[in-house]
């Protein structure tokens, strides 16, 4: 029983089929998250992080679809579940918070009611009980004067408060897995830190696993024990977050680490420029052959342009996919 991970993604391929073209937007993605574990997916925009998350909760819609591979939640394949069984998972066992707290709340409904709805929907509570629980849920996310705030509409709250409400909604039913898709991108830095801290503490208290998705390697490494780096639809490296920072094996990971400003480094003192990764993520329709990072990689050789690199296992359960890994 202990062996079954909470969620396991195995060789996932997500197809993009718009009638004319048929391409794999995500391919060969595998990872597992154990109960209470924190796992991060990092990568630039358009590398397939968010659609991977959507696949996890069974919400890929045309033109996207799961082409191959399996997603197992507690050993059961998500694709094999009926629509009603999937709905019972969503919001209840697997919850999600989003990038935009401004638009993710219903503007015409008081926030307390939106939280209470979760208890009514998934726990079969009466509205009276649910409203009571909503006040507690707001108190849990450290919203001051929750018994008054439940009556507020989203536009009466600040961005940080709204994201707290989103967290309260997501954690209302004590889910086993919380997917956080760029949860703090729309917030300013001080609020960002508070929200991340709050999310981490609440999940640690309840034993909720976190899948955090972000382009910000620093943020992800701060929250997560293990990090998967995605590039152009593939996971190119997966390591413990300390190892990633200390010794990223894939040139792309090294590029991401180097492009982070660090306190006390030469870059932060203004004597040299931050390093960046040249070029942009290729479009889904024309991924390069071989290693997809090869056009932007300084170490690329002939083999990188022709052959997809195999998985190399590193110590401590890490892996990298590169012909010339460090």
């Amino acid at each position, binding site marked *: 029983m202990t062996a079954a991970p909470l969620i396991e993604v195995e060789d996932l391929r997500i197809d993009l089929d718009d009638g004319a073209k048929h391409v794999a937007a995500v391919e060969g993605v595998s990872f597992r998250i154990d109960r209470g574990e924190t796992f991060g997916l990092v990568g630039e925009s358009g590398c397939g992080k968010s659609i991977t998350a959507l696949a996890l909760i069974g919400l890929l819609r045309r033109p996207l679809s799961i082409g191959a591979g399996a997603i197992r939640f507690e050993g059961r394949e998500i694709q094999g579940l009926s629509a009603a069984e999937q709905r*019972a998972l*969503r*919001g209840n066992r697997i*919850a*999600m918070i989003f990038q*935009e707290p401004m638009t*993710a*709340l*219903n503007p015409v409904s008081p926030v307390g009611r939106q939280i209470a709805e979760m208890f009514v929907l*998934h726990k079969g509570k009466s509205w009276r009980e649910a409203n009571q629980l909503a006040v507690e849920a707001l108190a849990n996310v450290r919203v001051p004067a929750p018994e008054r705030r439940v009556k507020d509409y989203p536009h009466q709250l600040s961005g940080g408060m709204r994201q707290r409400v989103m967290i309260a909604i997501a954690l209302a039913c004590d889910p086993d897995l919380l997917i956080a898709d760029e949860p703090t991108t729309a917030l300013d830095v001080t609020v960002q830190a508070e929200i991340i801290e709050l999310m981490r503490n609440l999940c640690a208290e309840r034993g909720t696993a976190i899948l955090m998705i972000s382009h910000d390697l620093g943020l992800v490494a701060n929250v997560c024990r293990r990090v998967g780096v995605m590039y152009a639809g593939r996971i190119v490296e997966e390591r413990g977050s300390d190892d990633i920072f200390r010794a990223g094996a894939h040139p792309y990971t090294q590029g991401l680490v180097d492009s982070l400003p660090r306190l006390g480094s030469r870059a932060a003192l203004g004597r040299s420029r931050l390093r960046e990764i040249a070029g942009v993520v290729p479009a889904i329709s024309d991924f390069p052959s071989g290693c997809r990072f090869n056009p932007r990689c300084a170490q690329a050789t002939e083999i990188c342009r022709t052959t997809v690199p195999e998985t190399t296992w590193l110590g401590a359960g890490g892996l990298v996919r590169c012909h010339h890994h460090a």
Partner: protein
Amino acid sequence: MNLGTSAIIGGMLFVLAIFVGLFAPWLAHTDPVMGANLVNAEEPPSWIWWFGTDAQGRDIYSRVVHGARISLTVGIVSQLVNSVIGVTLGLTAGYWGGWWDDVVNGLTNVMLAIPSLIFALAIMAVLGPGLTSLLIALGLTNWSFTCRIARASTLSLKSQGYVQAARVLGYGDLRIMITQLLPNMIGPIIVIGTLGMGGAVLAEASLSFLGLGIRPPYPSWGSMLSEARDQITTAPWLSVFPGLAIFLTVLGLNLLGDGLRDVLDPQSRSRRT
């Protein structure tokens, strides 16, 4: 007119009409049907007969007051039926799309192509005159605008973050429609509904005037106009007062609808501030 002036005037006229309808038995001086007394036939308006009397000696004021009940019942109930049909079809068509959307769109286009009064006439001809058939005829023929608005709103709301979020949180389709979509489109639906109510009052009057709605001796404003047609030169009060009642009620509903549009439309609200 600024802020809610037209809404307030319209609302007052509408509330007055409802008040008259609700309290008709207490406001009326005589029974609208049985109060005939040939001794008082065709009296012009006076202190005793406020709106005059008709050829059977019935008090026009009492009949107009009682007529409010029928006109408003028809206006409100038939428009409610229209709104429910229009919103249900438009919302589901916009949300689910596909073949259902095609079917609803086709049906809406057909309804828009047939003049609704003619359609209602045809239904009345089949069902026969009477209040129930009036409600059915007018309730089934005027939902196409509501349907269009509901469908268009659904299409634009569907991609909003909170609708997506609701799906992620495990809401079923029905719950998304009722809690996320409907409350966000209710403004325009109410406006269309209010304007439609005025239209339904007029349609009832037209059908009754043509003899297909409420039959004499029961007092509906339209049937009273129909009866008064022959005496329009000799006893103008017979047609003036029911006509005035129709005019004020419909005017009130239209002003209310226009006013609500200004109040409920977020764009015009931000223009004012």
